[in-house]
């Protein structure tokens, strides 16, 4: 918090722009500029979200009007005209880059919600708990990985979302069980989608609810067997 923000009697700076953007009074160019900042600047996006929350009760002024059926048909045409491509989920799901990309974004969203909204009921029974996902969210860094653990194939897939490793450093993946020292799963190979094998010991830890963390380590990984560098991302596993 800077001092001027509190002491001044008017809205100023980014907070004023965020407020005006949400209110809807900006002209076309100003709006477009603000919308670009929402995409690029997380702090600004937060200010906007706060104003959206503040002003949202005014939306009770909007009535409900049933749209004509043609609207949904047009939406379906626009979104699903080439549904042939969607069979990808049947064949080679794990090797599909599109699947990984989609899952990264989608399941991260789902995860954040699972954490934020405890009232969500468990996922449909069709998905057994053999497959778990984790979003390893940045911890004072921009390093973000998405993890899928498959208990049947004893495999951990890591999908790189953001954050580069320093030139002479490696990322190392750890499982941490409550009150126990972290166990290494090894250095995370460079690449956007990589895999690590999982030992029986690690599987047991995962089964008992361990969390994952990524640290920044010297090239080749920690020499001591314990994390030596800062934690750059962490998260825990959830059913999908």
């Amino acid at each position, binding site marked *: 918090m800077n001092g001027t923000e509190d002491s001044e*009697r*008017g*809205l100023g700076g980014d907070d*004023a722009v965020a*407020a*005006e953007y949400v*209110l*809807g*009074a*900006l*002209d*076309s160019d100003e*709006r477009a500029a603000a*919308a670009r900042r929402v995409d690029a600047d997380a702090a600004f*996006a937060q200010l906007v*979200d*706060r*104003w*959206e*929350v*503040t*002003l*949202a*009760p*005014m*939306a*009770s*002024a*909007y*009535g*409900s*009007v*049933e*749209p*004509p059926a*043609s*609207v*949904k048909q*047009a*939406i379906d045409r*626009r*979104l*699903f005209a080439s549904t042939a491509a969607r069979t990808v989920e049947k064949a080679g799901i794990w090797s599909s880059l599109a699947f990984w990309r*989609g*899952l990264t*974004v*989608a*399941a*991260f*969203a*789902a*995860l*954040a*919600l699972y954490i*934020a*909204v405890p*009232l*969500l*009921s468990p996922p449909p029974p069709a998905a057994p708990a053999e497959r778990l996902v984790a979003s390893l969210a940045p911890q004072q860094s921009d390093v973000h990985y998405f993890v899928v653990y498959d208990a049947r194939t004893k495999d951990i897939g890591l999908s790189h979302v953001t954050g580069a490793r320093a030139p002479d450093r490696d990322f190392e993946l750890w499982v941490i069980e409550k009150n126990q020292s972290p166990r290494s799963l090894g250095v995370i190979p460079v690449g956007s989608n990589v895999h690590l094998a999982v030992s029986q010991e690690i599987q047991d830890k995962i089964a008992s609810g361990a969390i994952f963390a990524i640290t920044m380590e010297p090239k080749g990984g920690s020499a001591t067997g314990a994390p030596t560098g800062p934690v750059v991302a962490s998260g825990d596993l959830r059913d999908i």
Partner: protein
Amino acid sequence: MTPQDITKLIVRTSMKDRAAFDLLYRQTSAKLFGVCLRVLNDRTEAEEALQEVFVKIWTKADRFAVSDLSPISWLVAVARNHSIDRIRQRRRPAADLDEALDVADPTPGPEALAVAGGERERIYSCLEELDEDKAAAVRGAYISGESYADLAERYKVPLNTMRTWLRRSLLKLRECLER
């Protein structure tokens, strides 16, 4: 449908679950169409906007995870922002005023779609603490998407004066709501 149900539908939509998306459309399209109609004031344009809004919801549902908004408020924000973007890009008089009057009257929606009564009353009582003109300008901008230029013309004040009015009004409004 409870807000939690709508949340689940948004999450499943973000995972590209078409059945969830269809149900989400059935449950919320009337509310969002009401938003588009009110802002755009033109039925054909509102129908196009509603299509675009649901295409956005399909492609950007993951964004909901990082918002503090309730699920229906988030959907309304997508529809409202999109409609205001559209209205800023055209500058012609509204086509059909009668139609606007038809939709101006709020009809209470299903439970999940209604803003909690307490919050609604609170914001309206805070608006009442503002000067009448200023409260009307805030509502005009928020609900109908009127721009600073529109409002300055209507209230016959310079644009910068209107900007100052609204900035001060928003601050007062927030302070009142946080009391």
